């Protein structure tokens, strides 16, 4: 059960399948205003596409995509994006996470400001969930994959 070997066919299949899963994840994040989906689901799809390459290719191939030390700061960046969206609205004289006060450029109505505020926090959730799932996989599989 614990035998490990390098298979070019599995790596080719994973390389063929992974970009489409990643594109679908980005679509789910950015189209969450109109269809089912959102930051959590899209982030999990992005994480599953990265984990697919990591399972099929081992450490040397997967380090080309996202380096292992880069996942923990990325998770922190995702949480900070969410918190900043709330804190900037406090600085502009409104409540915490009230998107009407966010300083987006252009002449926007409050409803459109809330639209873009929701988009910002969905991107933050997506980055954080993707980085955390990849981070858990990396620390669980360390030393087990070949090369």
């Amino acid at each position, binding site marked *: 059960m614990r035998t490990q070997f390098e298979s070019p066919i599995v790596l080719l299949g994973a390389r063929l399948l992974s970009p489409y899963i990643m594109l679908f994840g980005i679509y789910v994040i950015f189209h969450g*205003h109109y269809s089912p989906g959102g930051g959590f689901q899209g982030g999990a799809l992005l994480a599953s596409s990265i984990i697919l390459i990591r399972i099929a290719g081992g450490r040397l191939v997967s380090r080309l995509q996202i380096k292992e030390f880069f996942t923990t700061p990325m998770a922190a960046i*995702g949480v900070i994006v969410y918190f900043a969206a*709330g804190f900037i609205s406090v600085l502009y004289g409104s409540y915490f*996470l009230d998107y009407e006060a966010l300083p987006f450029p252009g002449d926007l109505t409050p*409803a459109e400001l809330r639209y873009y*505020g929701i988009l910002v926090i969905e991107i*933050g959730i997506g980055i954080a*969930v993707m980085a955390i799932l990849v981070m858990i996989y990396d620390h669980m599989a360390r030393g087990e994959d070949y090369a």
Partner: protein
Amino acid sequence: MKYAKIVVLAAFAGLLIYGSTGLPDRGDPDNLMHQERSITNTVVAGSYFIREAYNDANTPNMVTVVLGDYRSIDTFGEQVVVFAAGLICLLILRKYRSI
């Protein structure tokens, strides 16, 4: 002892099935949770969300508006919980360099 376990499990399953017969039908518009006023005659917040979600946030998907705008602090707490769980996995599973 094995038969006693099976009898207890079957009795518990029968109790659950008997309890589920008293629940309202799924998708019935006359359910209590779909009414505009609750038992205590207060206005349910969900009716406001259904009526005003598109006008407030210009977004057709109501679930996104509730999760991202009306209940956004709840979502923020959820994300902090996920982040804390990831950090705890890092602290437990990390292999330290032997000194």
